[in-house]
């Protein structure tokens, strides 16, 4: 009974803490990816916007999909959603609960990426350097329209020969970075307030339904795991029996063909009886060859 409880607790706590762990790992991985990424803005008029916004939005999509793929519960939820009703009705509240918990966990890493990107500022500077109003900055105010686009596009590249000692470049850069960081902090604040409210206000609505949904979603998860373990145990026993049957049939065959055997081995169990029957190299080779050429049928009745 104790062992049963221990197993049950292990399974219940395990899947949630494993999912939280994966969620945290992905968030850390997204920060590491960002720092190891060699951000190099193309500094060309049309390419800047595409590159900057691409770096800001494509990796979050990838991280979101990874979060869904690595989460075992998403498979469980899909199976529960698509299975035929059979003898067991489907409860949509449970499926909704599972879906929302999976989505919440999968959204953590993309949000971390976007916030880190905004707080760092390079992406926004690259994407929007061509969209600032040149009149606001002394160095770009009196330049012709085509030239100004080219110059503004080069602002993110500090080492470019045109921009090396340009003070207006630093002004534009600071301006854009300020906007980027403000946006980053605002998003972070809004998300944390939303999470806080969601967690606090949850018990005010449908607490009983929530408890039920959570219980049954854990149940479905545990049931799936136990089914897989039982199948493995069964296939092990099946294999054991199948091999024993095979050895017994080999014993009978060898006994039929060779006469110099002691009679006392008749009722012996599997391997012990086998040693009295398979006693030389030729017989061992025959046994191995038969195992390959004629595997026994999958029938242990």
């Amino acid at each position, binding site marked *: 009974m104790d062992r049963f409880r221990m197993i049950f607790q292990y399974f219940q706590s395990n899947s949630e803490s494993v999912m939280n762990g994966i969620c945290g790992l992905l968030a850390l991985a997204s920060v590491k990816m960002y720092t190891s990424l060699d951000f190099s803005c193309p*500094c060309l008029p049309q390419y800047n916007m595409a590159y900057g916004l691409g770096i800001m939005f494509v990796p979050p999509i990838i991280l979101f999909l990874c979060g869904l793929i690595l989460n075992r519960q998403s498979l469980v939820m*899909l199976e529960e959603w698509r299975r035929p009703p059979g003898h067991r009705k489907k409860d949509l509240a449970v499926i909704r609960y599972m879906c929302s918990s999976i989505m919440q966990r999968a959204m953590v890493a993309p949000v971390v990426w976007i916030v880190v990107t905004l707080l760092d500022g390079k992406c926004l500077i690259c994407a929007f350097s061509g969209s600032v109003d040149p009149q606001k900055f002394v160095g770009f105010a009196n330049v012709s329209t085509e030239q100004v686009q080219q110059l503004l596009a080069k602002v993110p590249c500090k080492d470019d020969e045109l921009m090396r000692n340009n003070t207006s470049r630093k002004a534009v850069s600071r301006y854009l970075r300020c906007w980027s960081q403000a946006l980053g902090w605002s998003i972070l604040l809004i998300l944390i307030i939303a999470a806080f409210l969601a967690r606090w206000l949850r018990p005010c609505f449908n607490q009983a339904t929530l408890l039920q949904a959570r219980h049954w979603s854990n149940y479905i998860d545990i049931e799936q795991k136990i089914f897989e373990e039982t199948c493995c145990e069964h296939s092990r026993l099946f*294999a054991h029996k199948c091999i024993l049957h095979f*050895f017994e049939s080999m014993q009978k065959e060898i006994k039929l063909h060779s006469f110099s055997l002691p009679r006392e081995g008749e009722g012996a169990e599997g*391997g012990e009886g086998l040693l009295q029957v*398979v*006693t030389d190299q030729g017989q061992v080779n025959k046994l191995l060859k038969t195992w390959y050429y004629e*595997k*026994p049928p*999958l029938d242990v009745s």
Partner: protein
Amino acid sequence: MDKFRMIFQFFQSNQESFMNGICGIMALASTQMYSAFDFNCPCLPHYNLAYGLGILLVPPFILFLLGFVLNNNISMLAEEWRRPQGQRGKDPAVLRYMFCSMAQRAMIAPAVWLSVTLLDGKCITCAFCTSVPVETLGNASHPRLSQGEVQRVLARIPCKEIYNGQQLIANEVAVRYLRCISQALGWCFVLLMTTLAFLVRSLRPCFSQAAFLKSRYWSHYIDIERKLFDETCTEHARSFAKVCIQQFFEGMSTDLVAARCHLPRKAPADAGEAAEKLLGITDQGTMNMALKSWHRCKPPLHLHPPAQPTGNGWAGEGQPPTHPSAPRKETAAYYSWV
């Protein structure tokens, strides 16, 4: 019971988590390989493309094959595929399942190499530097050079130290442009792979879930059956060897007894465990002879039936009649686990 649970958990989790572990290690190894590799663009017009594309495409192919080689289940798949039908039908769905799961795992390290290479940018810069659009990026008013000259100049873009085309097109501009394209390709590739993986994983429960469960069960079964068979054969080989060696020593000691008649006789009643273990060899000379005989003339792979009570010529004097049953007693104790 506890041991049983531990063993079947070992069997279940071992194969899959072992394979996932190898997969992860290979992915890490491919990033390490890339960072340790000293990329050296030749900076010559036609060699650049060959070198760059070679570095981009050949290592992934090697990693893919390595992924198959390191996977233990490949021999299981090959065996199941090639075995004669015998009394057990072959299920192509099981073979397909095994092949797919192996291929999926083997594709991870090459995909990691390709992503890292594209995101880094050196390969694409080297391979495509001669295709940079000079008209849009460079100096249009530069005095006309022949096509070949232009190609040669552009080919030196990756090698900053020898680049002499600063008036034609600035080195940083070209490198930034190529790197931007390379990173865009890299991110698109990663997005594509992740989307494919997501679709494969999430669409499966919508189609043929029952067939999938069946294939997965039988592929695990084949693996477990093979392992159990190997274990049983090992147990048999062990007992076979034990009896063979005991019979060898018995043969040696009876030979010695026949050859030297002055050996002190031990009464069967006093024999005991220690004397049995000594197998009738009690001095240095005898031991040396036994060792030499083991090396020069190994016994045949043929276990004698236990010695008949009527005996042959040499089984005479000092042989306790309980001796022949001793090997069987030991093997009986040995087989209780299977």
